[in-house]
């Protein structure tokens, strides 16, 4: 099956261009922009892990190693498109405009952090596995029924493909031919369970055959290739040709969450075949003669400063009050909840 689904690449592991991108994404300005975006995601991730270690953040989900898969796909969308993330896509979201404060608040346990960013139709992260897939199919279905020009992209990991909701979502998307891009980040592990124990299939891409849906297996650490296939899938969906499945093969360099220790289940040499996506892009920029140490240092300094400002703001953020707890359960507060809200305040809860 693997031969039926060859890994699509535009640059190889040494950062050498194999073929040209269709959308100009390998040209100087765009390539440098990808670097900026991926660094933004990476530096944030590392700082967030530090914050968690210092007890300033709750359990945090890192994504180092998956920046190209996230940035390459999210940048292929238009402004009106819907995004259904799982819980590991805040890297790509930050890189493409989400507020760092908001992401820090979310992992810091503040509900305001799950209010999606205003400029895009991003849904709140799905914590259960695969549940967002059929929901996204429904959103895309509504776009089709209302003849809106929107495409929906839904993110999920390799483990999610074992869930019923993955298959139900694939089936509904296929039956109603909705404008949906199913973006799988196959990062090799579902917490501690390797893909080889997750499924007997060689690829995730092949699962689309059962739903008569086109699919592609892409090198998830090649940002240009990810952009290329996502752009094609989005165009395919927007032009009314139905859904498409993308398997982006990548590697979770770190832990599943900050509460997880991969040393317990992974050998140190595992994942060596994966060249880090940021390093790969750096090699590409160097080969093209576009690398500039000073430019890279400026990016790093500016992003780190921005992260510091975001942390400052978040740490001064007021504790949520009774209205956050009670006023959004229903559109109108039922009298039973009104009583409980009064009780909450009487017992010292923040009014």
């Amino acid at each position, binding site marked *: 099956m693997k031969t039926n689904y060859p890994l699509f690449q535009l640059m190889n592991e040494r950062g050498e261009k194999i073929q040209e991108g269709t959308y100009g994404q390998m040209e100087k300005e765009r390539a440098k922009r990808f670097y900026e975006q991926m660094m933004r995601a990476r530096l944030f991730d590392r700082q967030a892990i530090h914050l968690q270690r210092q007890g300033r953040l709750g359990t945090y989900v890192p994504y180092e190693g998956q920046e190209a898969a996230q940035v390459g796909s999210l940048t292929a969308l238009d402004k009106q498109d819907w995004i259904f993330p799982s819980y590991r896509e805040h890297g790509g979201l930050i890189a493409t405009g989400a507020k760092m404060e908001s992401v820090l608040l979310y992992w810091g346990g503040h509900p305001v952090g799950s*209010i999606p960013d205003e400029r895009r139709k991003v849904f709140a992260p799905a914590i259960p596995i695969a549940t967002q897939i059929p929901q996204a199919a429904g*959103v895309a279905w509504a776009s089709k*029924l209302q003849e809106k020009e929107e495409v929906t992209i839904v993110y999920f990991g390799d483990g999610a493909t074992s869930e019923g909701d993955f298959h*139900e979502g694939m089936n509904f998307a296929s*039956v109603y031919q909705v404008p949906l891009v199913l973006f799988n980040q196959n990062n090799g592990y579902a917490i501690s369970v390797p893909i080889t124990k997750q499924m007997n299939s060689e690829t995730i891409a092949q699962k689309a055959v059962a739903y008569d849906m086109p699919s592609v297996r892409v090198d998830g650490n090649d940002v240009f290739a990810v952009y290329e296939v996502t752009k094609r899938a989005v165009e395919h969906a927007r032009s009314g040709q139905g859904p498409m499945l993308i398997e982006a093969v990548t590697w979770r360099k770190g832990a599943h969450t900050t509460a997880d220790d991969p040393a317990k289940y992974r050998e140190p040499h595992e994942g060596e075949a994966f060249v880090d996506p940021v390093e790969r892009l750096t090699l590409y920029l160097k080969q093209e003669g576009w690398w500039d140490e000073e430019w890279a240092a400026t990016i790093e300094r500016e992003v780190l400063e921005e992260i510091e400002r975001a942390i400052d703001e978040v740490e001064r953020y007021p504790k949520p009050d009774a209205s956050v707890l009670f006023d959004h359960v*229903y*559109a109108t507060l039922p009298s039973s909840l009104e009583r409980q809200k009064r009780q909450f305040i009487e017992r010292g809860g923040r009014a």
Partner: protein
Amino acid sequence: MKQMTMIQALQQAMDGLLQSDGGVVILGEDVGKNGGVFRATDHLQEKYGEQRVIDTPLAESGIIATATGLALNGMKPLAEIQFLGFIYPAYDQMMTHVSRIRSRTLSKYTVPLVIRAPYGGGVRAPEIHSDSTEALFTHMPGLKVVVPSTPYDAKGLLIAAMQDPDPVLFLEPIRSYRSTRGEVPEEMYEVPLGEPALRREGDDVTLIGWGAMMPILLEAAERLSEEAIQCEVIDVRTLYPFEPELIIQSVKKTSRAVVVHEAQLTSGFGAEISSQIQEEAFLYLRSPVARVASYDVPYPFFAMEQDYLPSVDKVMQAVRETMTY
């Protein structure tokens, strides 16, 4: 005014909803060409087309999840789950998403979705088809749970549920689909959610129930009046969020209460009602709040269902015991 059955009233409500709002879509298993296994959506696909009345794949989680997506993106979905006993694959979607989307996004995203599900026993159905597991859904803040007991309420509550900005689980008592008849106006009207109905006035004891238990309570009340026991009968109608005021008021007057449901006794919704009565009307009570419910066993094969379910006699017996406590 026209007399009709509950199933006819529901069909008329859905016809009117499809007619009056182009965003309304009905989706579920067999709801289209077949008109639903109970014919609740009979002829609606013929009239409104396959884009509005949609036969979905046989996948309950998929139905509720895609309906959620439709609701998030501007549509007004009315999903049918064929029997409440088959809703459990969708429980995850309802528990982890449908009920929480408003609160976890501080009302940025909302799910105006109605889920219809026939429920309850007494019709000699195969296994799993008779479940009355409403209590499982009264522990999901964000969701509303509504149960009509008359044709008039079925139509008015369904229309109100579809106007509600929050998700509603609308449970239809299978046993009452064709056995209850009543006057139903042709026009569209709403019966507000969150308001119980006083079905009969009386001074001696308050009988509390919903759905298919209501005809049983009313018959028991009628027969007990021949024994000079006057029952007040309350139809809860909206189980969740629970608004106990009318019940408390009534029990303060009668000093006695019997709660009846066809669900199993332990952790049934009667436990909540009983608890709220003792919290709010303790000093008024002249006897403990009684519960008439089914036994704590899985719903039996139908050869035993009449012995398993609450009956007029069981309710009358409980009332007599309450009166002589």
